[in-house]
């Protein structure tokens, strides 16, 4: 094979590889967003303490029929794995961004309920954050505030 041709073939292959990688990672991200994953917390208690008589912990029970729940022993004596996921269709695209900003993404509610359940069962109460000291609103469009809310899924009451 001539040099030029070889280079072209190699470049072509490289190009294909790059497109493939781009395509698949974007595709993967999209698939990930569509997927309704279980969100799980491990609670440092036995299953019968986590769900006495099969009753859901109060913060999860409050979400009622909108979620499904899974409970299993954690390996190595680490307690109980408590999982939940929303039945609801997960919003996507612009709708998703709006839902997350507004704190309406059902995954955020599930996540908060799981954390609260864990805290309640392990410590006896749901720990509350302080009331913000100064209620002066953060400047509009300030990125940290938005980022934190999106990342955490928890609102300050």
């Amino acid at each position: 094979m001539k040099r030029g041709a070889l280079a072209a073939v190699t470049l072509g292959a490289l190009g294909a590889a790059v497109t493939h990688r781009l395509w698949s990672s974007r595709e993967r991200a999209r698939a990930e967003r569509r997927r309704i994953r279980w969100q799980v917390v491990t609670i440092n208690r036995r299953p019968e303490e986590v769900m006495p008589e099969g009753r859901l912990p109060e913060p999860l029970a409050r979400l009622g029929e909108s979620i499904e729940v899974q409970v299993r022993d954690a390996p190595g004596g680490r307690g109980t794995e408590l999982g939940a996921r929303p039945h609801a269709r997960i919003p996507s695209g612009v709708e998703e961004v709006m839902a997350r900003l507004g704190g309406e993404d059902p995954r955020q509610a599930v996540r908060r309920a799981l954390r609260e359940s864990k805290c309640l069962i392990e410590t006896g109460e749901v720990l509350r954050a302080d009331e913000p000291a100064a209620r002066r609103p953060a400047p509009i469009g300030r990125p940290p505030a938005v980022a934190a809310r999106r990342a955490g899924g928890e609102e300050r009451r």
Partner: protein
Amino acid sequence: MKALCWRGPGELSVDRVPDPRILNDQDAIVKVTLSATCGSDLDLLGGHGPAVRPGDVIGHEFLGEVVEVGQGVRRHRPGDRVVVCSVIGCGRCWHCERDMWSLCENSHPGPGASGDRWGGDTAGMFGYPHAMGGFRGGHAEYVRVPFADQGAFRVPDGVAEMDALFASDAAPTGWTGAHLGGVRPGDTVAVWGCGAVGQLAARAAMLLGAERVIAIDRHPERLMMTERHIGAETIDYTRSDVPADLRERTGGRGPDVCVEAVGPEGAATGRPRLPGRIRRRIGPGADHLVAVREAVRACRTGGSVFVLGVFAGLADRFPLGMIMDKGLTLRGARQHGQHYIPRLLELMGKGELRAAHLATHVMTLQEAPRGYELFRTRRDGCVRAVFRPWA
């Protein structure tokens, strides 16, 4: 009440804010008698640290008197003189039960839970309300202390307040570095940084049995203080090639344990500095890893390096290959104070651990913005500015 609030990059002010209230049964309200500045606040002052919002009350090292307790509090009652651990822990999750309190799984209820940022939840903390769980800081007349039975410790009668204050943050941080760094009797230990944390890490190493402790900094007054009050040898890194100096002092082996107590403000050592223009292009903190890198290089083969500095983001130019080639253990942690504070207070009572000398500038809360300025610029030999909200 009065409190020190973050108002914007480089801008602090003492403002009136609502008094804290008991929000959970396991809360106590503490009337603050002393509170101290900490190197961890420096990033935040510049405004390039983790998310802070105007109005956030800062400060996480404090001591005071219990004035109110929730109905679930067993170990404290109004009138108790307590020092409060800067990190909040529930005492009942898997990590707390194993004395890894700064990895508490239940003390971070606020926005911006760390799980998404770090890939795992970490404990809440006082004084970074927007980023670390939603808890106001200690530079205030009153503080709400969640999980008070776990996080507040009675100061024994024989212990001076100015020593006990540092059992909140600086002393347990130093102890965490030396203890989890694996210091054993007979070891040689090097500590980068002679701020309050570095000095107390050096002292912890000695109390854990290290035979030689060498502390590194550039400020003459901090080096002198470390020799005099801690009893460690020192190296001025502006006058010496630190790894070479350490090899010379340790029979060519290098220190068994290296503790980094510098943080992102780390200044370039020995090697020629980049011209200012290039440095500005790369941006501040582009090479804030100097001390960590030096510790990795200086450490003996098979030794251990412990990172105490609070580095917020990603870091490049890290000598990863040396970790494998030299068989090093690299570890870090936020302090697990609840595990160490009772012992620290006991050692303070016996006069074996002293910290009061760190309080170089004691002032009222009203003067706190000036105190932070002194602390930031290290002017006038400032190691820790300490505030008295009720003076």
